[in-house]
């Protein structure tokens, strides 16, 4: 998922240049990491505009806080932490407006033996895009990072700053809530 790590020595030079006020160096740094960051942002956004907005916010925060980067962990990890926290903040802000998307017109069942994996993936993505906003922001964040980004509990704990136990508890609650949401949607369709 994360892709190859960029060359750290050239990255250090870029960071030093950014701190000297070199805008070109900042653009180069963004170009190296944009795909990783935008994919994280896309997991929590509904439209390309939201992805752009969130992505810009993440890189601006990184730019403004760059002096705090000590180089103890790879820059990509430091940036991912900013990305995840920004996504969490965005989820909390947006919670009211996106919490009520109907599930009625979404295909709720995935075929056991799908003829086309791509259709299956799209159907699953569409269903989750409506079901996940019904979770609490923290639950949505944890379940997305664990199940869709395939990160470990330890990684999620490092990214969010929560303890491993906390991450597990939130993941458990998120799964339970998601199951309930799907069951209720099933009942709604039957009734």
């Amino acid at each position: 998922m994360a892709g190859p790590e960029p060359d750290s020595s050239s990255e250090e030079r870029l960071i030093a240049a950014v701190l000297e006020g070199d805008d070109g160096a900042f653009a180069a740094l963004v170009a190296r990491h944009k795909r990783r960051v935008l994919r994280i942002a896309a997991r929590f956004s509904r439209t390309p505009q939201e992805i752009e907005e969130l992505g810009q916010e993440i890189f601006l925060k990184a730019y403004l806080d760059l002096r705090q980067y000590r180089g103890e962990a790879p820059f990509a990890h430091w940036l991912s932490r900013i990305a995840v926290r920004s996504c969490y903040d965005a989820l909390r802000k947006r919670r009211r407006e996106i919490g009520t998307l109907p599930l009625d017109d979404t295909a709720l069942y995935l075929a056991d033996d799908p003829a086309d994996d791509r259709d299956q993936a799209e159907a699953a993505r569409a269903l989750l895009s409506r079901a996940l906003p019904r979770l609490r922001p923290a639950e949505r964040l944890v379940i997305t990072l664990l199940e869709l980004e395939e990160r470990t509990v330890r990684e999620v704990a490092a990214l969010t700053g929560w303890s491993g136990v906390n991450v597990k508890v939130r993941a458990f609650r998120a799964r339970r809530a998601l199951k309930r949401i799907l069951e209720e949607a099933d009942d709604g369709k039957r009734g």
Partner: protein
Amino acid sequence: MTANGDKRLDRLFAAARGAAPDTSRVEEGFEARAAARAREARRRGEGGLFGVWAWRLVPLFAGLVITVGVWTAATVPGSVLDMGTEMAAAWDAAELADSLGGGG
């Protein structure tokens, strides 16, 4: 239902992992826009020493102003001007000057 529900969720997640978000449209020229935004933030002073500390120092300055105000009122007698007295004195002085000057 729980076991079935879990299986269903696992299948759902596995299928959704096959549809990685497409960010290609946003990626185009993204770094140029990000650099422009950073430049703008720097121009406005966001993140600079002043930008970071100015807001944090507001309570300190407010406290300082209140303390100085209270200290002045408590320790300097007559520091609060009686505007009426001042105006009356000015009027008297003007009248005196007038009478001495023979105006009237």
